[in-house]
């Protein structure tokens, strides 16, 4: 699979507009840079007469807010989330887990200061500022992982696997460390 088939999201430069068909919305700002975008969404919702529930805060606060809103939401609801990529991916993964579909989640990424890498050998997640294609030491099993150009929507993380898997002992015992 070449890079042209990557699942790494290509985030548009401009924030997606507020969906005028929404009947309710949750707006989450995950960093200071995200606040103007979130404020514009909330204003657009307010102008359209759509009830908007907003939260500005860290990831844990945002996830709690999301859980509470989705517990009572009816179809017609939209999630608008802005912030760093790693946090946006985690919020989107949580919304998906709770039953949201792709077009119900509108995201704006303010930057990619770090990536979360899931180790396929031990399941640990390592946060890194390495670029896609780089190498990162797994926080769980300590092996060097290749930061692959695949992002799991379900887990909200990049895929990482041993950089030298093919040169290792063919029995492969070291590969399974979980």
């Amino acid at each position, binding site marked *: 699979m070449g890079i042209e088939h990557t699942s790494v999201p290509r985030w548009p430069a401009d924030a997606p507009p507020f*969906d005028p*068909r*929404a*009947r309710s919305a949750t707006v989450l700002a995950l960093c200071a840079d995200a606040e103007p975008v979130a404020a514009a969404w909330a204003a657009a919702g307010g102008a359209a007469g759509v009830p908007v529930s907003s939260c500005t805060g860290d990831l844990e606060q945002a996830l709690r807010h999301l859980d509470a809103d*989705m517990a009572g*939401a*009816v*179809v*017609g*609801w*939209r999630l608008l989330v802005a912030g760093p990529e790693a946090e946006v991916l985690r919020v989107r993964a949580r919304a*998906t887990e*709770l*039953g*949201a*579909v*792709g*077009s*119900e989640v509108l995201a704006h990424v303010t930057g990619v200061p770090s990536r979360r890498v899931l180790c396929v050998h031990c399941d640990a997640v390592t946060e890194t500022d390495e670029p896609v294609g780089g190498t990162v030491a797994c926080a769980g099993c300590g092996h060097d992982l290749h930061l692959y150009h695949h992002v799991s929507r379900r887990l909200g993380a990049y895929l990482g696997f041993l950089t030298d898997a093919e040169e290792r002992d063919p029995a492969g015992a070291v590969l399974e460390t979980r």
Partner: protein
Amino acid sequence: MTTTSLVPAASELAQADPSPTVAVTGPGLLSLRVQAVETAADGVRTVTLTGADGGALPAHPPGSHLVLHCGGRRNAYSLTGCGTRPRSYTVSVLLLGDGQGGSRWVHGLQPGDHVLADRPRSAFAPVATARHHLLIAGGIGITPLLSHARAARRWQRSFELLYGYRPGAGAHLPELRELCGPRLLELPQLPDFLAAVEARLVASPVGTHVYACGPAAMLDAVLERADELGWPQERVHTERFSAADLDPGAPFRAVLRRSGRRVPVPSGVSLLTALEGAGVPVPNLCRQGVCGECRVGVLAGAPLHRDLFLSDEEKAAGDSVMCCVSRSEDPDLELDL
């Protein structure tokens, strides 16, 4: 329920032989035998089919249909079973006076008759990640939703079934009542049915998916209202009996990139038929813009989409066309053929 009818020209329809015939067995065909026939409601015949040799039948997702070879034609009917390890296939078919002869043929079947069918095809399956399944059936449109209800019970999924039917004409009521209990809403009065659908579309928890089957007007109303109420397309699933009648359309020319050939498509002749006439075979099944089999890549020119298969986004992209019903906005349509 007829989802598709597979004869290309109306002139051939009139000649369709309504009596059962045994066709030549081809690869992938199922050889079936009628085990039982019964009347499910006024004008509705339920036919149970087993493997002719007593062998196992292919499993299928809920909401699938079976394409029966009805004499000289092929018609698709919804399977009413849940599809897991089926020992038999069951279809329920409404006799249509103005239909194309397929329902009359099915109503003529007797136990012991031999029937050929393609393997079941899935185009209306439940979404595994849904938190709740809202099933909406109008009239004989109950058949794929009976399949859904059985599967939902089997796998303990959250569901509700709204069943609208003319008083006295509801098919499968006893088994639906036993299967669904309080999750079945019987709505023989049209205003009650419409009010129940409206209430669900206004207030269904996030994570709900809608599955609707019934007359075209009912499906159009559900789609339009769901759209107004902010339902994403991904949450609304419909199964149509058949495509609407289409106008003959303006003539255009198909330009085949790989062979460099130019195939004229006159008014009243489908692109698919024109390609076949020119000796260019395209895989196809329903020939009504429903099944998605005859999708062809478009390299230049703007397609005039008239199918029910492609999503709005795919239609807007303009890079493929369902050649059985769709045509061209431009004089030339360049195809990846």
